[in-house]
């Protein structure tokens, strides 16, 4: 009762689905963000515009981290955390992108115009 050609090694649908998934990586929506939201320990939240260059420090749980905004991008310049994953993430600029530093309890997110994330 089984469909025998179901169990051939390769069929047309396979190639189609592989190409579809490979292409989908390039066509995912990427929108340039508008605002930078920096939150520390989920209690203190700061909002900065993304189009003004500036450098500032934030006091996290471990110590002060330096954040840089420039050319419409954000990055953590240096952080007191041990693994420095947040520094290695480098520049982020797209809406929905984020840098998370768990040891220092710092989350940096980029949002668009609407304020849905800030009202939490």
């Amino acid at each position, binding site marked *: 009762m089984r469909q025998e050609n*179901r*169990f*051939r*090694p*390769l*069929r*047309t*649908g*396979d190639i189609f*689905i*592989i190409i579809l*998934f*490979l292409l*989908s*990586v390039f066509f*995912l*929506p990427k929108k340039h963000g508008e605002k930078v939201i920096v939150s520390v320990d989920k209690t203190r939240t700061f909002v900065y515009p993304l189009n003004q260059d500036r450098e500032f420090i934030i006091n996290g749980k471990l110590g002060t981290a330096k954040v840089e905004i420039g050319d419409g991008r954000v990055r953590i310049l240096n952080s007191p955390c041990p693994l420095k994953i947040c520094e290695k993430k480098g520049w982020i600029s*797209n*809406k*929905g*992108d*984020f840098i998370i530093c768990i040891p220092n309890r710092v989350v940096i*997110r980029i*949002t668009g115009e609407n304020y*849905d*994330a800030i009202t*939490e």
Partner: protein
Amino acid sequence: MQSLNRIAFLSVFTAASITIFVVESLFPTPIPGIRLGLANIFILLALIYYGIKEAFLIGMLKSILGSLILGRLFTPSFLFSVSGTAVSIMVMWLILKSKLPFSLLGISIIGAEAHTMAQLILATSIFLPGISFLYISPIFIISSLITGSIVGIITYLIYSKTERRFKFCVD
């Protein structure tokens, strides 16, 4: 006779998938959270030889007992494991039953993608509200494409070797 065979094969499948699940979790991977998902071989084989009920049984037992052995029962990673397994079994079953031209390789890839997508949607909705899961998905799409093809090829090889023997036991 038939039900005895069924019990024996299901228990062997479950034991094998739990063993692979546990051993696989102990290996370090370049990106944390990405595994090969070789336990999916047995879920897919159970789906072919038996049906969705048996595949669900194996999948859920794999997640629950595997997490119990690894000591992370009822932690977030257990939740992700259960939900990903359930979604991938349902999607793979739908494709297996449909008339779409997919071989085991394609079914395995789609199952792997469904597994990671379910986990991503759950993870972003629980831990990172406000962040769309689409923005962190490219790396997971590519990695589950690779792991899904590896699992699909292995499943095809096992299936083509065991098909004749299984037919006596199942049908």
